[in-house]
Every structure is written in structure tokens, then in C-alpha cells.
């Protein structure tokens, strides 16, 4: 069953994406760039390291991956047929 989120009308999410975004804690400098650019509120900083709070509201834009100067964010596509979808794009 697709899931909706009150904060983001008109978008549905299908669960089962797998961990398509990961962080290499060794490389992470805790700069917070990923937190700043994420419109889905998916990131947080805990103990000066970036951590994925949730992938349930991710729209797979890869902004977190682009802005990570340390190369600590690893981005791949979610499992086929999962993740966000919208009629209104």
C-alpha cells in the first residue's frame, strides 16, 4: 500500500526501498551540508556525525550526495518499483 505524508501532499511512497543512501561515518566531518539541503527532513547530526533519520520522505534528488565534500554520502537508486511517486510532477 502506498504511504502518504501530511507534510508533502500529492506524493506517495512505496516502502521496501532498502538502504539506498548510506553514510561512511569514518569520512563524515559533521559539516551538516546534507541536513541543510534536504527538503524531506531525512538527515540529522548526532555526536557531530551525519545520520539518516528516515528515508521514508526522500524524493531521491541526491542533493545530500552532491553537497558532501567528504564523499561520505553514498547514493544509489532504491529498489525498483519503490520510493516516491507523484501524479503531479
Amino acid at each position, binding site marked *: 500500500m502506498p504511504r502518504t505524508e501530511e507534510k508533502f501532499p500529492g506524493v506517495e511512497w512505496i516502502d521496501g526501498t532498502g538502504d539506498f543512501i548510506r553514510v561512511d561515518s569514518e569520512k563524515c566531518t559533521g559539516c551538516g551540508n546534507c541536513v541543510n539541503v534536504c527538503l524531506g527532513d531525512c538527515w540529522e547530526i548526532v555526536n557531530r556525525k551525519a545520520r539518516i533519520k528516515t528515508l521514508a520522505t526522500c*524524493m531521491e534528488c541526491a542533493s545530500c550526495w552532491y553537497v558532501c565534500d567528504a564523499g561520505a554520502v553514498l547514493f544509489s537508486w532504491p529498489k525498483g518499483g519503490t520510493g516516491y511517486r507523484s501524479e503531479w510532477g
Partner: protein
Amino acid sequence: MDESYDVVVIGAGFGGPVAAKKCADAGLKTLMLERSENVGEKVISGLTIPVYGFLFGPDFIRDGNPPFERPADGIINYIIKDIDTGDIEIDDTLRVPRPFSPVIAFGYNTYCKPFCQWEAKKALESGVKLRTSTTVTDVIRSNGSVCGICLEDGTRISAKIVIDAEGSQGLVAIKAGIRKKYPPEAISLSDTYDYEMDKSDVDRIFGYSVRFCWGWDEQKIAPPLGHGNGLMVWPYRDSIHFIQDHCLRLDGRKVPNLKKRFKEYHDNITTKLPWWSSEVTPKSKIRARMWEGFEIYVGLDPDLRNMRNHDDGIILIGDAAGLESTELCDGVPAAWFSAEIAADVAIEAIRAGNTKKEFLKKYDERIKAHSVIQWSISGENRYNLRYAQETKDIRLLKKYVHHAWGMAQLTHSLSPILTLSFRYIRKDPTIITKWIRMYFRYYQNWLHNSYDYQENREKPYDPTRRPVIGETVFRAFVGGLDFILWILGPVVKLLAIIGEKLSWLANPAMKLLVPVIRPIYKILRKPMAPIGNRLAEKIIDFVDRADPALFEAKNSKKMAATLRHTREV
């Protein structure tokens, strides 16, 4: 290998189906892979597809009946000098004038999903196999050459050529070592809203014009000048799309808090911009909020721009090849053009039995020789807006806006567009009447909502009234033109060759002419408006009542026969 194809296309957005269809039409066994469950549901944009995409794009789109939300007649720019005092200047000089508009359109607004699905359906009708819910994880190489792709479940599919239409992130191309990841300075994150609105309100408030807003950064009304789009509003049939976008990083500075900034801008624009707060807010209801990144400035960086878009056995197209328009922010025409070029090169390569990069470099050569692609990825006016902000020079701000989204755009767009127009006329002089029919057919389809969005199919329009005189005039005009173009074909072709050679003169000529035309246009438009509007109403009435057969692509049967022949060969 688990399966084997001539061509595998990664991605069924705007470009993928075009490449796949062309390969299948040429008789190649073609597979298209899409990671979403349904085609088009992961494609997000605020979208006017500029008309040059349709004029010079794939035949099946030009001669077909794709789904549109509304034709666009051009752009109205609001230059916001002081939002609190309401000091706002307007530049609306890049609009197709009445009576030509709205039938002769500047572009066509559309939702991505139905359009991509319509394209994919055409590809399937040509024999393309489509597999959805399928994520490609990597390419497979043999002796260094790409010879297929690997899926997430480990399935290996062999292909003589892979066409990568994956989108701007380009994960497969990066993994394959063809391109590198774009820097955040080249990427813009677009924050997109879809609002429901009664058609009568969209007609009254927006009509056919796209709205752009530009303002000093201190106004906090729109993303910083030169670092993204001010703000854009697209009118659809009974909804509007609102987009603000912002580069992920500005010239090596700290990455901004975009979540906070977008909210601030959105709140300001919807409450402070007079026409938005008084007209739009009471009449609209939010339906969707989405976001997506796109490679806005890749074309302006020589290192990024000159990255290869091919390797042994693989070709990148559209956003995956960094072909985003820097000023109009539209990647669809370039996706279509590059898809067709990629398919042509793939067909030639497979027929020649040579899919090595020495052969496939033809693709990059043709992309670099494509006047409209090169123009669209190299416009600097949007980028340069940052210098207007630095010096707070209002003349500079107005100049850049006028050169990118006002009449002065013709000083840099006319030559590339004419070059391509003449090239197309040289190949087939009767394309002129195909273009005319396209404009009328598209407008009639829009007027009669001739697309079944529920079923995702074209629905026939059965006219109840037929204006005999108008139809006879149109038939005589277009038929006569067809006849003349056919009779004088060699002369027209010769003139087109000369025109193509001389089209470089159009830009400098416009540099001289725009300063003269603009004041005349300003003086004449008001007294001419009633005449233009009355004539436009008559044309709209004619299109409304005319027999759709009048606007059908004349060559469709001949084209289908040619395609069948090609497939058999």
C-alpha cells in the same frame, strides 16, 4: 548472460522512449528499463516544453497528439525592485503577439507523467519491450567494452549498445567511469508546488503566459539572483505549477539551509506579491509539493561540458549527458534531440558492426554540431544575474532579464533556430506545412481536452459544427503551400541551403533591430490590441469548430509505410 538485445535503454522519461522507438523502428531488438512502477511517476518538473523541441524533435511527437495542459504564449517577467512599496516593473516582450497566439505557441505546458507515458506507449507500439520496477545497478564490460547491464537482482542483460537516459544524477555513467559527479555549484534544487484552480480563474489570472519573478536578494522573495530561478509560475488547464529553485552551493561558499530558505521565500511570495495574495491565494488549493535536482550550469563549465558522452558500447543522452538549458531551464528538447542522434548513431554502429568509441564519437560530434543544443546549454544571462546583485545595478538586472526572457533573447537564439529550420526545410520542404498543421492540431486538442487522462490515451474529437468557409480557406492555403513546396522543391532546397549558410547573420541583425523594434512594439501594442484580439478570437473559433482531419499530419500513412519498410530491411 540471461537475455540479449541489440539496444538497452536505461530510463523511460522524456528521452528514453524516443531513442528506444527509433531503434525499434529500424528493426533493432530493443529493451527499455524503468526503475519506477509506472512510467513517468518519478519525473518532476514545472514544464513548458519550448516549441523548438516540437519543431525539430521526433516526427511522431510533431505529427502526433500528445497530452498538453496548456499552450504558452511566452513569458511575463516581474522585476521586483521593492516588494513592500509594490515597486515592480514588467518585461513581457518575449510573447508571441496576437492574433498569432495562442494557436502559434511559444511552448506547451504539460504534466510529466502522462506525457512520458504517451511517449512510452508509442515506443511499445514500435516493438520496444518495456520493463518497469527495474533498477540498473551497473554496466557489464567485456574486453573493456560495455556489452550489457546488470540489474539489482543480479540479472545480466547483454546489449550491443546501451543508451543511458538515466537522468541528471548519472549514477550508471559515473560507475562506468564515463563521467564524474557534478559539483553542487552546477546543480539546482527545485522546490515545486502544484495548486488546483478553476480553469476560469487560470484563464483570467494567467491566460497563456508563464510568469517569472526576479528580485534583489534582500527582498527574500526569490532565490539569489544568478544562483537559480527567481520564481516561476506555469498555468496549466485547471491548476498552476509554482517553482523556486536554488543552486546547492554558491561559488564555493557555505551550503545554504535550503529547507529554511525555500519556506521563507514561499511565504513571502504568497503573502507579499500583490497579485498572488489577492488573486491566486483565494482561488487556489495546494495539491502537491515535490522537489528534484537538475544540472542547471553544467553547460557553462568547460570541463563538465567537454566530458565524453560515450564510451565503447554506451551513449549518454539528455540530462545524463548534462544537456540542460541554462536559461529556459528545460531539458526536454535537448533530451529529444540527443535521443534521436544517439539512436541514429547506434543504428549505424550496429549495422557497421562497430560499437567502439572511435565509431560512437560521431554522437558527441553531432551533439556539438547541433546549433540549438549548443545554444541552449550555453546561455549566460541567468548566471550573470549575480553580477547585477553584487553592484545593485538595476539596469544590469533588467538587461540580463531582457536578454534571457525578453525580446533580446532573439539576439542569441535566432541564428541557431534558423540554422536548424533551414536544415529541416533543406531535407524536406513540406515540413513547413507539417509545422503549421502541428500548431493547429495541438491547439485544437487542448481546446477540446482531447486526451483521456484516466485511460492515458488520445480520444477522438467529433466536431458538431463545421465552418465551411474557414475550412476551405485553410485547406486551400496549406494545400496550395504543399503543392508549391512540392513543385518548387529543388528551388526551396537551394534557398534553404543559402539560408542555412547565412543564418549566422540573424543574431547580429537582431542586435541592431531589437532596440528599434522594442519601442515600436511598445507604442503599437495598445492600439493594435483590440484588432489582434478580435482576429485571435476568430482563429480560435475556427480551430474550435474545424474538422480535426484538416490538421492531421499528412505524411502519417506514408511515414508508417516507410517505417515498416525500414523494419523489414
